[in-house]
């Protein structure tokens, strides 16, 4: 591509410049209006002051200081304890990490199966569509339908009771970390499958043959050929899953019975109380921590180079 454009010096610079700008304008405008401006406003408001019914233009660190109020004291006290903010971030991070690991393993395995074991394109498409089933139902429907499945008197508990596997219904099936992670995995494995599948399909099959011919075992081929070549997909999928899970509050709320704290929920509660500046401050902190993890991931793989 680059070579072909360089080979056309006859085209005048101005004519090339303006249309290019005009063409880039719509997307740039959309980005500016729906991303840059709101983000800027959020950062700005996070430094504002507020009272019960108003946000007051100001430049104060109050919201950030209050977010971490007492954190140091509590950590250094005789009975060390995490403050609410750190505890909430830790819970969110823990859930995000577990979900990431599970979706990664599942997503990789499914993508591998689709890319290397399913030979016919139409079967691939059908199986791929099957993976989108979780998106066919709305959150409300899911909320209602998890209870009869996982609940105290739900299908799973009834079955286990009847098979005499358990004597008391399992309480941890619903409104627990388990339920939250299950729902996330159910929802977001697809976000892993798609990019990993995409990079796997672009692996030259002769490389796999060459590895086999050179005497590599199945695992060796996987570790030395397929995983390194699917790295882009893995990183993109990881970014999807991590960013979605870190910011979620609906799924954690519904599946955790509102009893598990998440950063999103904290922001939601503050918005509900019309405390926009502290909510904005938390949003900025959340954004920073998510950006940091993405930065870490992109250190591992240069996505742009490998796309």
């Amino acid at each position, binding site marked *: 591509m680059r070579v072909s454009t360089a080979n056309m010096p006859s085209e005048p610079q101005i004519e090339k410049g303006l249309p290019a700008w005009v063409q880039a304008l719509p997307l740039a405008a959309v980005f500016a209006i729906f991303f840059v401006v709101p983000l800027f406003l959020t950062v700005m408001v996070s430094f504002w002051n507020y009272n*019960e*019914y*108003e946000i007051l233009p100001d430049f104060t660190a109050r919201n950030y200081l*209050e977010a971490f109020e007492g954190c140091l004291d509590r950590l250094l006290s005789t009975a060390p304890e995490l403050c*609410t903010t750190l*505890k*909430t971030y830790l*819970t969110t991070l823990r859930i995000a990490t577990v979900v990431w690991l599970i979706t990664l393993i599942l997503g990789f395995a499914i993508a591998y199966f689709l890319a290397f074991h399913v030979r016919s394109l139409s079967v691939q498409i059908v199986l791929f569509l099957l993976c989108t089933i979780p998106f066919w139902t709305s959150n*409300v429907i899911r*909320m*209602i339908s998890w*209870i*009869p499945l996982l*609940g*105290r*008197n*739900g299908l799973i508990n009834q079955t286990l009771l009847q098979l005499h596997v358990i004597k008391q219904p399992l*309480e941890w099936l*619903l*409104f627990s970390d388990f339920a939250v992670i299950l729902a996330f995995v159910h929802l977001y494995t697809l976000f892993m499958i798609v990019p990993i599948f995409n990079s796997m399909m672009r692996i030259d099959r002769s490389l796999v043959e060459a590895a086999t011919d050179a005497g590599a075992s199945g695992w060796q081929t996987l570790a030395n050929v397929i995983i390194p070549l699917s790295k882009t997909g893995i990183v993109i999928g990881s970014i999807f899953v991590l960013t979605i899970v870190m910011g979620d509050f609906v799924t954690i*709320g*519904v599946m955790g*019975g*509102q*009893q*598990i*704290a998440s950063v999103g*929920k*904290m922001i939601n*509660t*503050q*918005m*509900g*109380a*019309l*405390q926009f500046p502290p909510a904005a401050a938390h949003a900025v902190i959340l954004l920073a921590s998510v950006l940091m993890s993405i930065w870490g991931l992109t250190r591992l793989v240069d996505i742009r180079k490998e796309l």
Partner: protein
Amino acid sequence: MSRTRRKHVVTRRTAMKGAGSLALLGSQTVTGFPAVWAQAPKVLRYLGTAVNQSPDIAKKVKEDTGISLEYIPVTTDDVSRRVITQPNSYDIVDTEYFSLRKLVPSGNMLAMDGKRIKNFDKITPVFSKGELPSGKKIGDQGTAPKKVMFLEGQNSTKFAKTPTQWATLIPTTYNADTLGIRPDLVKRPIGNWKELLNPEFRGKAAILNIPSIGIMDAAMVVESMGEYKYPDKGNMTKPEIDRTMKVLTEAKRAGQFRAFWKDFNESVNLMASGETVIQSMWSPAVTAVKSKGIPCVYQPLAEGYRAWAAGFALSKSIKGTPKADLAYEFVNWFLDGWAGAYLNRQGYYSAVLETAKAKMEPYEWAFWMEGKPAERDIKAPDGTLLEKAGAKRDGGSYDERMGSVACWNAVMDENDYMVKKWNEFIAA
């Protein structure tokens, strides 16, 4: 290449210009009916929670007055947010009295002129004086409507201590909330708020995750346990908030709660599925569980009820416009009886009792308002069976229920601190 493309554009543009002028011509020929344009369509944009925004009411208003209601259904939080940040996005708002301490100072609400409300003097004294029609005083802890019902003047943002001509809200509905229980699973009489945290129901209790309301329910529990007596449950001091949240946090750590709910449907599902057997609940949610054929009782408790009330206010954006006249016409219609009867039949209470009574059958009034056994089957406005003949309303009559109100939904002075503590509680 580029030249030919440009040519194309030109020709297409001219073609479109032609078409445009044709269309203009066309539209000009149609404007021959001045009568149609003389009258603006009677439309009111109605902001509120979905609870009161029923299609039946919209239909009946249209029939009676020609006003079309455009419902904007959002959550309680979003109603406040809109009033404060986007007063131009609605004409009339239906909000709760406890929000007023946040909303009125914003200056975005227009005081309602009592002189333009036909039944203004007939509005139940629960609102104006904090007492029953019989004269019995009712509990006024929290944001009791009488504290925020009147303003000092039309453009004032100060609450008046005594009734004036200027009302912050014209009341629509109100009710007394308590705990809902599943009698078939609890299997014994429940008489006090403290049962919510009774270890007997470990893992089977729930509380609502709306901080300002949840903490009041918790305060009812704390008082019932005999731990502390609040001077005002609806306006706690910081140490009182700490004390209340400590009780809740300990219960949470001990696994007392199955879940917290925020949404009407969540509370219905929790109760109907048997995940919880005792929880804070709203009256229509109990009705919804019952209509599935599952026993559920809206249990009257010794310490009394936590009450709430909602009403209409105009947006400042329609001040002095014909829209304001429409809004007054609608509010007057609302107090005229049909809507009141409709709400009473759902278990809410209407602001003007006598007009609603006129629009209800005597047996309906006896069941819903007088606490008498139902003479006939009691049906919801949509025709579903709510109670069989012979049944009595939980908690009894209007006077018994509203007379036992202990406190009102509130926004505290220490709201900021309370929200922080609530987040801490959720994270515990």
